[in-house]
């Protein structure tokens, strides 16, 4: 027997992502899905952000990792709430994992939730985790053609963070080329060039976070 179906293979994931999104919306929490290759500096960016903005926002991190709890420990050391998801070799987080880890977090009064995805530029892009925006990270120690090689991420992301710019004198990374490829894919992409190590350029990223948080929770921001 032939059955014509036409169903989105990711529909189960998208349905759960909708539940995550609705729950986070009730609390007015800005949720960002951080995606990059391994070693770009997702955890370093979060460590800096959690420390530098600790006085302004209540923040938490859902930490996706293949095996260890190293990253969650680094994040927890800043005093922020952190939940660890070990994917046991799985290459991405999905909305079900996020939904169950929400139960381990105190959402009351939370301003920003970061989802640190597994280091990978392909699969995490396909699985909606219920976030408000995807943040694509890239570092100048990688190839400047990453946006060209992994177009879906840069097409869907709202923000691109270019990390490790303090290394520019030592690498052949062409900033203009990376920017050009990325904006070709997504002309509204906001790009921040920064270094988590030296602190250079972080203010732009922080300003974007403030703006995005305000858009998510307008009445609160007015009160402050």
């Amino acid at each position, binding site marked *: 027997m032939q059955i014509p179906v*036409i169903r989105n293979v990711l529909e189960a994931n998208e349905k759960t992502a909708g539940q995550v999104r609705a729950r986070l919306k009730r609390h007015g929490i800005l949720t960002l899905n951080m995606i990059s290759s391994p070693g770009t500096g997702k955890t370093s960016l979060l460590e800096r952000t959690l420390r530098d903005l600790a006085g302004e926002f209540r923040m938490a991190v859902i930490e996706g990792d293949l095996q260890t709890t190293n990253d969650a420990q680094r994040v927890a050391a800043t005093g922020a709430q952190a939940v660890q998801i070990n994917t046991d070799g799985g290459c991405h987080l999905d909305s079900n994992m996020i939904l169950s880890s929400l139960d381990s977090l105190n959402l009351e009064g939370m301003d920003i939730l970061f989802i640190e995805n597994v280091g990978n530029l*392909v699969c995490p892009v*396909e699985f909606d985790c219920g976030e408000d925006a995807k943040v694509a990270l890239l570092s100048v120690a990688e190839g400047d053609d990453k946006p060209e090689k992994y177009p*879906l991420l840069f097409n869907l992301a709202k923000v691109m963070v270019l990390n490790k710019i303090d290394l520019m004198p030592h690498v052949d990374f062409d900033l203009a080329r990376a920017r050009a490829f990325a904006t*070709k894919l997504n*002309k509204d992409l906001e790009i921040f060039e920064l270094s988590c190590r030296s602190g250079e350029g972080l203010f732009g990223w922080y300003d974007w976070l403030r703006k995005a948080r305000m858009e998510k929770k307008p009445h609160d921001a007015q009160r402050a």
Partner: protein
Amino acid sequence: MSLAQSLLCMAEEEMSRRNCARLLMARVEYGALSGVVPEALQFCFDAMIQGTPHEGARLELACLPLRLRCPFCGRVFGGQDKDALHLPCPGCGELFGHIVEQGKELILSRLEVL
């Protein structure tokens, strides 16, 4: 692996609705931008049906080419692979902001069952 899992899950749902027990073929259409690696999906699908009533079922994979629309002149154009994303609009030469009308999908489109 998660894709193969959702795929089988959906196939089983459709089958139980029709009182069918055995899958013979599933057809999946994926966009050129979707990130699906056909060999990998095939491998995982085969691994998951081993030792089940569906063992030996075929997976038909078809790639949907990119269809882009130029935001400036409205021209619709395309290409078989993702490189088309980087080409200027054939109508007006605009390089930026082409809207992806087709290319991100991942659809289970047909099942053959017993």
